[in-house]
């Protein structure tokens, strides 16, 4: 029994009971864990008739066979559910320490079903599962709650929602280990709809490894390679992810003021260089990670983890704000309230544009740093203008008659990279299974940084091949579960070898990427079953029709049609974007239809 614990914990909140049963190992071999296993289980459990905020939706927490083994970055875990924001299959992924503890508690999967009549929190100590009344805790913010429930990074880990999740904000996050987040797509609202306030874990198992010699070898080689890569050994630890601000702005791909421009004149003021110089206390890391990209930042008002590039962008360039301390404070506030920073910032930006254009009656305006904190609070509590914003930019923009001003794909707010400056990224956003997301296959590597080699970011022909490969590869990594920053120094072939060493099952590099392809196709089937079609593989009209008038990306709009056609063919899907029977048979998914 190596790699997997081979056990599922299935919790019913209706009756406050639980049962454990074996994990189907054939399924595990095909989908591995994390995102893959979550998607496969969700396929069986939640169909199109289920409202995401109803008791019939489930939360499926998964770790992977590598989790907790001590391999570099083997701390991550997933939650899978149907998204209340987009209605698609949703997998959200987080780091920190909770995932490691979850593995030590002896389970591969934890399913949360139903709804508790009253607020409840769950305590798990391997076989001992206790349901506690959470009436006193309901209403508490994340930081205070995490401390109160006894957070100790290595021994006892708290996962919880804040007021945003309690109030069913569709952009609410689930937080773990104080400031790590299962952020996108509103999993916090699902947890809130179940009256589940927190899950606290203590574990004592030691994950088993089949081939210890080979594992040691991979551990050593990975350490060597991460140290040799200047990205993972110098850039990320020193500057964190915010270092991207200047580079993305420089090439004219930094979405600004709700994607009205592709460069922000205040980029320097909110850059990684500025953060490091003025507000950085030190760096930090998740469990078993030698990279250390986490920031600990301090302003006059707060000290906490982050901000990340995307968060800084969302409250910065996207809102036209160049006041870094206020942005740092906004990030910390979102963490404490349990909100996804990307969706929160981009929704505020949408509201700013709607208000400036007179479609919406509010005083929100681009550049108003002073408005951030109050509106974020209002969103978490659904008060005043916050009630309009709490469910994301698409619902907001639709309400005020201009859905095209929501910078989202399938309802999920897009991140910082403006695809008019990166054609491949546009295809990525349009085809991502959970909506506008860069973590499903970031083209930043090939199109901007030259990883592994630079390709022309404006080239369209052949771009889909890269997007497909990156989507498949990322889906595989999300199923192991590892951090994608390891991939910056260590190639996929190492992960396949580690997986083989831990589980004793021989996965070639191609086998592992195929797992990713399988997961991708399954997620696609899920969305098709929900009623999504080819016409949902699209982007806001602004990105397809309005070219930037200055900057390096001047004159470019996203050439989606030709890329999408090539993409469908490359994936062996029909011209409507439906996986062909031949492809499904090849991936072992034919029996699902």
């Amino acid at each position: 029994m190596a790699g997997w614990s081979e056990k599922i914990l299935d919790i019913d909140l209706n009756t406050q009971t639980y049962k454990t049963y074996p994990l189907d190992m054939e399924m595990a071999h095909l989908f591995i864990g994390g995102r893959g296993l979550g998607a496969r289980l969700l396929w069986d459990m939640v169909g199109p008739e289920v409202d995401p905020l109803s008791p019939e939706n489930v939360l499926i927490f998964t770790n992977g066979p590598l989790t907790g083994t001590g391999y570099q970055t083997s701390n991550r875990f997933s939650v899978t559910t149907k998204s209340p924001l987009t209605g698609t299959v949703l997998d959200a992924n987080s780091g920190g320490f909770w995932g490691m503890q979850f593995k030590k508690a002896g389970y591969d999967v934890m399913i949360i079903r139903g709804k508790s009549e009253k607020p409840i929190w769950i305590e798990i100590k391997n076989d001992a599962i206790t349901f506690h009344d959470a009436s006193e805790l309901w209403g508490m913010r994340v930081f205070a709650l995490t401390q109160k429930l006894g957070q100790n990074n290595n021994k006892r880990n708290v996962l919880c929602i804040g007021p945003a999740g309690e109030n069913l904000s569709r952009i609410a996050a689930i937080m773990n280990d104080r400031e790590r987040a299962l952020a996108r797509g509103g999993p916090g609202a699902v947890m809130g709809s179940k009256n589940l306030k927190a899950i606290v874990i203590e574990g004592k198992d030691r994950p088993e490894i089949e081939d210890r010699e080979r594992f040691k070898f991979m551990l050593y080689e990975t350490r060597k390679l991460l140290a040799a890569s200047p990205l993972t050994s110098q850039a990320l630890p020193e500057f964190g992810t915010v270092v991207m601000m200047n580079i993305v702005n420089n090439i004219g791909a930094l979405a600004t003021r709700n994607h009205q421009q592709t460069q922000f004149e205040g980029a320097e003021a909110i850059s990684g260089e500025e953060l490091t110089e003025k507000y950085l206390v030190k760096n930090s890391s998740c469990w078993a990670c030698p990279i250390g990209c986490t920031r600990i930042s301090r302003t006059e008002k707060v000290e906490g983890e982050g901000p990340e590039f995307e968060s800084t962008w969302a409250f910065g360039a996207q809102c036209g704000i160049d006041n870094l301390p206020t942005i740092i404070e906004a990030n910390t506030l979102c963490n404490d309230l349990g909100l996804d920073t990307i969706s929160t910032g981009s929704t505020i930006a949408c509201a700013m544009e709607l208000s400036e254009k007179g479609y919406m009656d509010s005083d929100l305006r681009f550049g108003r740093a002073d408005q951030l904190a109050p509106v974020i609070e209002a969103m978490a509590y659904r008060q005043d203008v916050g009630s309009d914003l709490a469910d994301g930019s698409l619902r907001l923009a639709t309400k005020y008659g201009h859905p095209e001003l929501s910078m989202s794909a399938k309802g999920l707010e897009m991140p910082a990279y403006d695809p008019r400056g990166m054609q491949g990224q546009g295809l990525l956003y349009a085809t991502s299974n959970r909506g506008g997301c860069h973590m499903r296959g970031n083209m930043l590597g090939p199109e901007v940084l030259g990883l592994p080699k630079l390709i022309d970011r404006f080239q369209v022909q052949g771009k889909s091949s890269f997007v497909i490969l990156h989507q498949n590869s990322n889906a595989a990594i999300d199923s192991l579960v590892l951090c994608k920053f390891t991939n910056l120094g260590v190639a996929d072939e190492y992960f396949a070898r580690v997986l083989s060493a831990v589980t004793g099952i021989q996965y070639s590099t191609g086998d592992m990427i195929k797992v990713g392809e399988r997961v991708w196709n399954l997620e696609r089937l899920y969305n098709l079953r929900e009623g999504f079609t080819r016409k949902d593989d699209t982007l806001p009209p602004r990105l397809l029709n309005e070219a930037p008038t200055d900057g390096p990306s001047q004159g470019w709009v996203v050439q989606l049609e030709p890329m999408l056609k090539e993409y469908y063919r490359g994936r062996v899907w029909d011209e409507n974007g439906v996986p062909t029977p031949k492809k499904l048979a090849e991936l072992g998914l034919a029996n699902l239809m």
Partner: protein
Amino acid sequence: MIDQRIYEMFCDIGRDLYTANMISSHGGNLSVRLGDRVVIKRRGAMLGNLKPNDLIETRLEKNDSGVALASTELLAHRTIYKMTPALAIVHCHPRMAIAFSLSRDEIVPVDNEASYLLKKIPVVTEEFASGTPEMANKVATALQNYKIIMLRGHGSFATGQTLDEAFFWTSTLEEACQIAFYAKLLNEPFIEYRKMSESYNKF
């Protein structure tokens, strides 16, 4: 219509391969995958001197280029694209690597660069080492787990996301073999400078 940038990439890598003595005048091949199509050098064209109509575009599933026998190795390339995540393939005849392939089943480097990047290069054998389905399958199967492999006596097959990535592995392999050859000639006791190198052949 093949994008000009893709054509230029073929020319650059082709010329680099030829001038580095890794291919004869008309041998070897380069290809890239564009969605469900493959762009590959026409049979009889010179890698070191490619002209625009030396590149053929065909469907991945079968050869519909309208050019009979677009390349002897087209089958191998298509098979590799179907069986692996490769987006680009470099196939050439690196001399020292071929010499090494004649007497071993795997090439394990002694130099630092290849120790970091490659660790082990498997050698596969096939009776008809050109153009057959058996050879295509064997090569593609090996490439499911390694970025670059040798076909004994014939040459190297390397995959990557771009042609220059596949070229990088090819060039690193040839460099590794040349260094190993010099070490053999020097014939002095090897001072092991790497930790855990005894595991490379198990990579």
